C-alpha cells in the first residue's frame, strides 16, 4: 500500500446537480509522473483541488504515503503534515503570487511555517531553492510585478518545493506561458524530478506536453476516467473515441479537421451505446489509419 506516493480511490464530487468528478481512481508511484488529461469541464481541475484540500470530496479516498487526507484537516499538525505531502503550482503565475510579497519572502514563508530554522539557515535554504529554479539574488528582492511570466512560475515552483512535498500538482502550470518559456519550465521540472524524486501530477489539456513529461496518462471525460495507461501506449493506440478525438485535435502537419468531425460522431455513437463508465470497454475498434496527408478544402 505504501509503495504508492499517492493513491486515489473512487473520488466523487458534485456541485448541485452536476457531477463534476465521478469514481476517479488512480495511483502515482514515488517519483512517478502522471498526466490527467481532459477538456475544460472534464473534472480534472476539481480533482486536483480535492487532492490539495481546496475542495472536499463527496466520496472516495485520497491517501499519500498510506495516510488518509480525504477529510477536513483538524488542527495545525494535520494541516502542516498534509501541506508537506502535496503542493501545487497554479495555472496563472500572474495571480498565484501575492502582489505585496517579494520573491525571497514568498519562498521563506513556507519555510518559516514548516521548519524550525535559524534565520541564516532559512536564507541559505531560500537561496538554494531559488538557485534550483534558476533565479538569482536580483530576482529575490523583486516584487512579482517586476518579473516575467516564466520567472513568476519559477518562483511558484520554488515556493511549492519549499515544504519538500512527495507529490507536486501542476495545474496547467505552463498553459499561460510562451511556448519557448514552456519548454524551459518543462526541462526544469524534469531536472527537479530527477534530483529530488518528487512525484508529478500534470493536469492539462495539452497532449503534446503529456508526451514529453508524463510516464502515465489518465483521460477524464465528463468526470469519469475513460482511459488510462502508459503514456506511449495510450497515445500510440488510443482505445476510447474521446482519447482519439483529443489526439486528433492537436494541430500538426497533415492535420485534418474532417477527421475530428468523424471522431466526434464516433464519440457520440459510443456514448449512445454505453454511457461513459470507468469499466466499460469501448465498443468501437480503432481503425488504423495512415497519417493522412490529404487536407480538407477548408485548409
Amino acid at each position, binding site marked *: 500500500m505504501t509503495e504508492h506516493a499517492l493513491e486515489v480511490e473512487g473520488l466523487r464530487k458534485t456541485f448541485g446537480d452536476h457531477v463534476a468528478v465521478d469514481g476517479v481512481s488512480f495511483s502515482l508511484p514515488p517519483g512517478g509522473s502522471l498526466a490527467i488529461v481532459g477538456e475544460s469541464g472534464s473534472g480534472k481541475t476539481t480533482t486536483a483541488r480535492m487532492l*490539495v*484540500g*481546496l475542495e472536499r470530496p463527496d466520496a472516495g479516498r485520497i491517501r499519500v504515503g498510506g495516510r488518509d487526507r480525504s477529510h477536513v484537516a483538524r488542527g*495545525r499538525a494535520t*494541516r*502542516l503534515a*498534509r*501541506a*508537506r505531502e*502535496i*503542493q*501545487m503550482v*497554479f*495555472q*496563472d503565475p500572474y*495571480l*498565484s*503570487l*501575492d*502582489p*505585496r*510579497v517579494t520573491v525571497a519572502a514568498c519562498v521563506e*514563508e*513556507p519555510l518559516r*511555517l*514548516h521548519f524550525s530554522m535559524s534565520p541564516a539557515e532559512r536564507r541559505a535554504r531560500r537561496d538554494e531553492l531559488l538557485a534550483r529554479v534558476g533565479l538569482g539574488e536580483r530576482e529575490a528582492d523583486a516584487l512579482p510585478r517586476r518579473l516575467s511570466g516564466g520567472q513568476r512560475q519559477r518562483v*511558484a515552483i520554488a*515556493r511549492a518545493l519549499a*515544504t519538500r512535498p512527495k507529490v507536486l500538482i501542476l495545474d496547467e502550470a505552463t498553459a499561460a506561458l510562451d511556448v519557448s518559456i514552456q519548454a524551459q519550465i518543462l526541462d526544469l521540472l524534469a531536472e527537479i524530478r530527477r534530483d529530488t524524486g518528487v512525484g508529478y501530477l500534470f493536469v492539462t489539456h495539452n497532449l503534446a506536453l503529456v508526451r514529453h513529461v508524463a510516464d502515465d496518462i489518465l483521460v477524464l471525460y465528463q468526470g469519469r476516467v475513460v482511459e488510462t495507461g502508459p503514456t506511449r501506449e495510450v497515445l500510440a493506440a488510443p482505445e476510447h473515441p474521446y482519447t482519439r478525438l483529443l489526439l486528433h485535435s492537436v494541430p500538426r502537419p497533415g492535420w485534418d479537421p474532417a477527421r475530428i468531425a468523424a471522431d466526434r460522431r464516433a464519440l457520440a455513437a459510443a456514448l449512445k451505446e454505453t454511457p461513459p463508465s470507468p469499466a466499460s470497454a469501448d465498443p468501437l475498434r480503432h481503425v488504423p489509419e495512415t497519417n493522412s496527408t490529404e487536407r480538407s478544402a477548408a485548409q
Partner: protein
Amino acid sequence: MTAVPVHRRRFFAPLARVAGGDKLVTAALALLALLIVAAVLAPWIAPHDPDAVDLSATLSGSTPEHLLGADQSGRDVLSRLIFGARTGLLGPLVVVIVSTVLGMLIGVTAAWHGGVVDAVLSRAMELVFSFPALLLAIILVAVFGVGLTAPVIAMSVAYAPYVGRLARSVALREKARPYIQAYRVQGWSGWVICVKHLLPNIAPLILAQSAINFGYALMDLAALSFLGFGVQPPTADWGAMINEGSSSLLQGAMLPALAPGVAIVITVVAFGIVGESIADRVARREQ
C-alpha cells in the same frame, strides 16, 4: 532639486501617489491638510476666543476685525469655524475608524467562512441598512443624553454595513485568487491568511470607501448638531452654527449660517474626491 530627507519623502509618498499629478486631487488633499492643521492649532491661529462676546459687532458683516463677521451673540464666526473643525473632524474620524474596523471584521469573516456564517452576517448587515441612521442616532441620544457620544456610536454602527458589504465582496473575489489558495495549500491557518495577506491586499479599496464615508459621517453629525442632538451650544460646531445662524438669516446676515455650510460642503467634497481617487488608483492597478 531640493534635498528632501529620505524619511520625509517616504512619509509623503503615499499621498503623492494618491494625488498622482491630478490637480483636483492635489487641491483636495491640500485643503484637508489645511483643515487638519487649523483644527489642531485652533487656539493659536484663531483670531478671537470662539466664545468671546463682542456685542458691538453683533451680526456685523465682514470687517477687518471680524473677517467673516460675527453672529447674533457677537462671537467671531471665523474663530468659531476654526474651533468647529475640531469636533467636525474628530467625530467623523472616530466614526470612520470604528465602522471600518467593524465592517472589515464582519465582511471578511462572512466572505471567508461563507455558508451559514455569511448568511447570518449578511442579513444582520441588511437589518442595520434598513434602519435610518438618523433615527438610530436620535434613539441613542434618548438613551445616553445629548452630546457627541451617542451620535458617534450610532453613526459607527450605521456605517459599518457600508464597509462590511464592500469588504465582503472584495474579500470574496480575493479569496478565489490563486495566491490566497496557495497559502491554504501551504498549510497556513485561515486567521493568518486573512490578517496577514487578505486584509492588506483589500485595504486600499476599503480605505477609499472610508474616505468617502468620512464626508457623509461629517454631514450626518452636522445634521444631528443642527437638530440639537449633537454638540451642544455654546461649543463651536458647524452644524450647531448653522442652526444658531439660521435665525439671523431673516435679519439679513448671511455669514453666520453660510460660512459653516460652505465649510461642510467643501470638506465633504474634498473627502469624496480623495476617496474616488484612491478607488481609481486601485482599479487601474487591478487591470
